[in-house]
């Protein structure tokens, strides 16, 4: 049913492009070279900016204009944030938030 050679070809393309993106910075700024100051600076301050980007990325498919107006996502996200600021227990925050979201989209906002 599945096309094996085609599937392998596509996976190889994805793997190749992905590997290239990951290794390129290390090839350009190899260890023998002093890392430019601007790259060191970015290495320090990019991580928090990228985590912030990923948070927004997770909500990319949420539509505010159509029902249920992103309410399940925002309620569950608020629960995660409140629980985590309050209890600081990662497993609890993730577990409770995910169960809350599943209940909301399967039973409440149907």
């Amino acid at each position: 049913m599945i096309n094996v050679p085609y599937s392998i070809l596509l996976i190889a393309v994805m793997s190749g492009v992905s590997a290239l993106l990951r290794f390129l910075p290390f090839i350009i700024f190899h260890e023998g070279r002093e890392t430019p100051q601007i790259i060191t600076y970015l290495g320090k301050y990019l991580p928090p900016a990228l985590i912030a980007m990923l948070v927004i990325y997770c909500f990319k498919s949420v539509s505010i204009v159509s029902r249920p107006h992103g309410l399940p996502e925002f309620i569950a996200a608020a629960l995660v944030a409140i629980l985590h600021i309050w209890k600081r227990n990662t497993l609890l925050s993730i577990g409770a938030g995910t169960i809350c979201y599943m209940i909301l989209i399967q039973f409440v906002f149907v």
Partner: protein
Amino acid sequence: MNKRKDLLLAFKKSLAIMPGYIVVGIGFGVMMSDAGYSWIWCLAMCIFIFGGSMQYAAVGLLSGGASVLTTAIITLTIHARQFVYSLAMLDRYKGMGWVKPFLIFRLSDETFSIVSNESSLPAKVDRKTFYVGVTFFDEMWWIIGCVAGGLIGPIIPFDTTGVDFAMTALFIVIFIEQWRGNREHRPALTGLAVTFASLLMFGAEKFLIPALIVIISVLIALKKRIEKAEALKENRRTEN
């Protein structure tokens, strides 16, 4: 002896990633089995692609009969941030020796969030052991999830719609942890504001690359101010 302690710390850190990875991994495996691919394909994609959002997109590409060019462009879009992660880890992964290619090729969003969070690490930890440990354990959780999903996909007794929220929850938790660990909040705020604006302007399919470019530009523009503010805070801290 100390190495064992560092590995244990890496394991504990990866436990925060575990629920998200297993759940999202199972989601991927279920999608793959729906598309007609067995667990061996799931395993192969974990090993050769390794990236949650990319593997999810891959299911659509494979079953939709996408062309090689389309596939390359979509991979470039979704994994452009991998380039930036590698850039950010350049100095920290210096002198890692033969494990370096492993650390680079197995760097995921979640692993990056741990290994790049300097403030959460004890001073005495052996970096190499810790980095390898986190990278390895995270990958194991991901593979276990994906393969399990491929195997049990067709027989799950309850509706799993919405389990992928575990990943969103994980990033919110990591964001809060980062916020607590850093004195300088402008990078995080830049990331939020720029990505949100880019999403509104370019839409869900095309916003990542413009967001990445603008975030890097804004941070470079803020370089003098951020470094000055950090130096000031550092002075105040040592004076007190």
